């Protein structure tokens, strides 16, 4: 019986075993990227809200501090969604006949909360506490991005575990002074440092010690977040 395949196909066959590894690796990489993409994580997708509330206007243009509305961010696990009362503090007088705010006024009259669309939703098996992060020098914009430039708020980070861990492994890369936590535009500055990263690292390490941030082994322990 004559040979069906040429001798050279032996090499091809051997190569295909080797190449198969690459194909598998490529497939795994594709899956990981799909998993990380905003299609899966919901990052950078603007969420329509019942009221056209613009953080860009209220924070960026008017200069209202985050804590004016999110009052419990320094003391509680939840940053605090403002009740309708907080809207009415100003909008009882300003834009008080605007059709855009009819939902707010209805909520105020009927004592029924406005049902906002949730933007950031961690899985229920993750423990997250705003106050500890804010009090240890993690800035709002580190996780939420430049909210003062978002007409419609979107999720800035992937909120995946690898994203949490990149900071928990080395918080010095992100820490800032406590009095700059609510400053949307803050960046580390140090005349001696060569670039921004160097400046951030130098200051971050200093703050890591000054604020008594827990040891990295504790920050990365499973039960720190999954309790």
């Amino acid at each position, binding site marked *: 019986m004559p040979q069906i395949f040429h001798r050279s196909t032996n090499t091809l066959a051997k190569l295909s075993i080797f190449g198969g590894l690459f194909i598998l690796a490529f497939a795994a990489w594709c899956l990981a990227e799909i998993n990380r993409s905003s299609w899966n994580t919901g990052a950078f997708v603007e969420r329509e809200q019942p009221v056209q509330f613009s953080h860009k206007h209220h924070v960026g243009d*008017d200069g209202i501090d985050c804590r004016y509305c999110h009052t419990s961010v320094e003391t509680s696990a939840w940053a605090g*969604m403002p*009740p309708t009362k907080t809207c009415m*503090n*100003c909008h009882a007088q300003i834009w008080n006949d605007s059709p855009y705010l009819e939902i707010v006024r209805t909520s105020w009259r009927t004592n029924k*909360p406005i049902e906002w669309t949730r933007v950031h939703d961690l899985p229920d098996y993750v423990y997250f506490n705003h106050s500890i992060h804010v009090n240890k020098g993690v800035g709002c914009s580190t996780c939420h991005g430049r909210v003062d430039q978002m007409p419609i708020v979107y999720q800035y980070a992937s909120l995946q575990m690898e994203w949490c861990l990149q900071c928990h492994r080395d918080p010095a890369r992100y820490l800032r002074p406590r009095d*700059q936590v609510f400053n949307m535009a803050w960046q580390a500055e140090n005349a001696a440092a060569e670039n921004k990263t160097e400046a951030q690292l130098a200051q971050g390490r200093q703050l890591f010690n000054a604020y008594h941030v827990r040891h990295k082994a504790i920050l990365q322990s499973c039960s720190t977040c999954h309790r």
Partner: protein
Amino acid sequence: MWNIEKSRRQKAVGRKQKAESGRPLWLARRPVVICLLLTAFCLLPSACRQDMQDQPRYNAYRASTTFSDGASARPLVEGTIPRGWLREDELYYTGKMSGAQARAQAGATSTAQATTPNMQGNTSSQPSGGSVTNVSGNNAGGNLGTQQGGPGNAAAQQDATMFPFPITQDVLTRGQQRYNIYCSMCHGMTGYGDGMIVRRGFRRPPSYHDERLRAAPVGHFFDVITNGWGAMPDYAAQIPVQDRWAIIAYVRALQLSQQVNKSEVPPEKLNQPQGGGGQTEGGGERH
């Protein structure tokens, strides 16, 4: 040996034939089927099941179909006092003093006054013209019987003229920070009533540097923050009691800052910009 092997083979063949004749195919090919099922199961997108992500419990702000207002968080039953929320200290929680208490505390908190000469001095050294009978100089009793409660009513509540706790530098710093968050939006960074919200059309609040507000007792400010005043809504839900007092202390400092003689300021403090602790720029700075 060979016999055993042969008989085994025969048994196996027999079993196979039996299976093909009597039992359904999927049972006969059980390992193959199981492997296929396992593969299919692994291929199921894990995102389809969210039981762990969204556990059947009420997180903060989660909606509920049980109650008519749709909220899972319930307001307190009227008259309930949570543990640790019994508000016995009248001065601290209301900014008011009943007559007897006012006199007693005027003496008792003389230490507090001693630590805050500027605050207290500013409070009681500038009584509003005519309406306050300043009985004993720097004494909280000075306002007694002259305001809305009226004389003859011993239990009448008066706006407190003293802070319930000593005002330290820490309290003032906290007060400045809180003022810039909650008050500067309308009252302006320096208290002239020119904040951003006012520029956007809100009714202009009175300046803190008016004669009337310079003379107003601290309890008046506490009452306004807690219950609102005129166009100003109450901030009881947004500002905790301790912070309200800190803000009032800072308002006193602001008032002092616009009245002080330049020669009284230490030279190293002159021309030193007093930032709002890195707050986003809100109201207009006036220096």
